[in-house]
């Protein structure tokens, strides 16, 4: 009986972490459904990017208000979680505040956590106001209706509750208050409970302690189902982010092979294919579904936290077109989840469900509205590249389906015939000199 709380704690911990680990495995499997892509180059630059952009939040602060509040929540989250270590040790050993023997250092740490808890709470309330009262435009787009909206608020509620529980836990811990070190905020909350008996206060303290740690475990498991995955994936995502100039679009190797063959005068067009080549499936040009995209595209999709900075900078979106880069990322993730579930329910292999990313999620109209201006890529605080997905899908539309808008087909015919997007003769290219 004496060990029951410890036992319960251990069980909660194993279930909480175990279920999360299971979902992380699923997440990694889903990401690996993407096309292979070599990103083993330039490790030092990649580490630098991760340190600056994810750890250092360098792109978050481009928008000062949201950026500042985000840094507060981020630092608070990371630092306060040091406390979780103590809670876990306490929970497993049945001790109480095992680190408190460290004396003034302990007081300093807890004092810091308390201040951060208040700052996080205030920031989160402001975030909530921005979403629900001030109603910033980028949180109201059509793709943000329903689950994405409640998801955003849910995360904020979680954080408010966790921070409150932390402070209440400290405030009702009379032994901790008696130490009078580190209770920099909670000492002002303690008086609220002055009418309670010592026993009730102890009960409140125990409840707050339990709900705090259980809340953290639930929140951890909520991540997989939420846009909030970015707190973990921002790190690998910034590491694997694009290093080449933004204007340099990927070279399609499958096409290069074809072009080289066409340009090679030694190739016999009527030659029989080499032994065994008949069975090879011809390369598919571009992407119509998530499996055609690269695994980095798919990692991008899971990393997106739907902040909408991309969409608010998008010239097409600003002028009322159907395109929203954020929606491209959300659609990619939704479809990937659908494909993942399909694989789960079909014993590990994907069964054609008659759906695909193109058409069922992302429309041609969205794809053709893009000006390829890179504003979305520039705006993303965690190095997501929606433009790369758009371009792969355009490739599929044009090279597999010949489904470009008519004017673009004319333009391409001109380039093919006379080396310019307009119907001018190549032989007239230098006429300007004498005009």
């Amino acid at each position, binding site marked *: 009986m004496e060990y029951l709380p410890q036992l319960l704690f251990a069980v909660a911990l194993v279930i909480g972490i175990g279920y999360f680990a299971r979902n992380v495995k699923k997440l990694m499997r889903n990401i690996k459904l993407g096309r292979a892509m070599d990103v083993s180059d330039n490790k030092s630059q990649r580490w630098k990017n991760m340190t600056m952009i994810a750890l250092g939040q360098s792109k978050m602060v481009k928008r000062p208000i949201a950026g500042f509040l985000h840094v507060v929540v981020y630092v608070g989250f990371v630092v306060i979680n040091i406390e979780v270590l103590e809670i876990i040790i306490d929970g497993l050993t049945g001790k109480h505040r095992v680190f408190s023997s460290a004396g003034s250092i302990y007081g300093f740490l807890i004092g810091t956590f308390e201040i951060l808890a208040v700052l996080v709470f205030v920031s989160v309330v402001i975030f909530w106001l921005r979403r629900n009262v001030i109603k910033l435009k980028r949180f109201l787009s059509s793709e943000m209706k329903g689950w994405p909206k409640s998801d955003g608020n849910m995360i904020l509620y979680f954080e408010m509750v966790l921070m409150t529980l932390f402070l209440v836990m400290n405030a009702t811990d009379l032994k901790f208050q008696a130490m009078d070190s580190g209770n920099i905020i909670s000492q002002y909350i303690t008086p609220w409970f002055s009418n309670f008996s010592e026993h009730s206060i102890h009960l409140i303290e125990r409840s707050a302690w339990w709900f705090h740690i259980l809340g953290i475990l639930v929140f951890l498991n909520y991540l997989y189902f939420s846009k909030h995955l970015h707190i973990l994936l921002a790190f690998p995502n910034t590491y694997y982010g694009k290093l*080449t*100039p*933004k*204007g*340099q*679009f990927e*070279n399609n190797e499958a*096409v290069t092979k*074809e*072009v080289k063959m066409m*340009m090679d005068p030694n190739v016999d067009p009527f030659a029989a294919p080499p032994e065994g080549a008949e069975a090879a499936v011809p390369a598919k*040009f*571009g992407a119509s579904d998530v499996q055609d995209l690269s695994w980095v595209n798919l990692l991008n999709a899971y990393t997106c936290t739907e902040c909408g900075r991309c969409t608010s*900078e998008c*010239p*097409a979106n*600003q*002028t*009322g*077109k*159907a395109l929203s880069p954020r929606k491209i990322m959300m659609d990619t993730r939704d479809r990937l989840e659908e494909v993942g579930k399909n694989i789960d329910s079909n014993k590990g292999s994907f069964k054609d469900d008659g759906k695909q990313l193109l058409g069922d999620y992302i429309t041609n*109209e969205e794809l*053709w*509205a*893009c*000006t*390829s*201006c*890179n*504003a979305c*890529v*520039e705006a993303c605080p965690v190095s997501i590249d929606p433009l790369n997905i758009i*371009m792969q*899908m*355009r*490739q*599929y*539309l*044009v*090279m597999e389906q010949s489904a*470009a*808008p008519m*004017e*673009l087909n004319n*333009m*391409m015919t001109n*380039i*093919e015939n006379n*080396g*310019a*997007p*307009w119907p*001018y003769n*190549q032989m*007239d*290219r*230098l006429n*300007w*000199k004498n*005009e």
Partner: protein
Amino acid sequence: MSELLKVPTMAEFMAAGKQPEVLFWVGCAGSFDDRAKKITKAFVKLLNKANVEFAVLGTEESCTGDPAKRSGNEFLFQMQAVTNIEVMNAYEIKKIVTACPHCFNTIKNEYPELGGNYEVMHHTQFLKTLLSEGRLTIEGGQYKGKRITFHDPCYLGRANQVYEAPRDLIRKLDAELVEMKSCKSRGLCCGAGGAQMFKEPEKGNKDINVERTEQALETKPQIIAAGCPFCNTMMTDGVKNKEKENDVAVMDIAELIANAQDL
């Protein structure tokens, strides 16, 4: 034309057994578009004035393939690229300058993987070098104190991080450089990129070039400076849409400098 432009071709250089200092990649707009041809000529005047030994490919030049690639026709793009690279490698081209950010970006970033490795400069970078080397001088003259705002071309700015060269040139004109609320890395697209130039815009509530022109007009400029023939067209149309064509001129940086020199 009062004086004749000196525009030698690569073929002529080759015949004379010489290599030019730089290849001027004119681009399709610069060759065929009436407005862009003026930019081409202004730039050539500056090259002539600075005694730069340059050459053009002339009839051997062909579209870089940028609009094809951005439309999704990777096949056509690579055919264009490989053909152009073959021509340029045969002439042993080392250095290229162009007044079109799309050509600039494509040749600089996307040709290397297909076998074309060149030093590529945008004409604003090249002009800046000529100035710093003392081969060209600018007298502010007619633009002194004029309010000029610069519209960043996406494929020069965000795509390749070139923000200062065009601005430095405007400052050299003794003009007052006024920035739009979204400029440099946050500059709004003119609406022409990604092959939009060649198609009608998708359904929306406004044209992108009008939106961008409104941002430019907020700075109360006398001149909207551009560094891209497509941006130039889009902004010119935007200014007309706002019925401001009598008050606000849209001009390429090369034209501003050539005019300042009375060329």
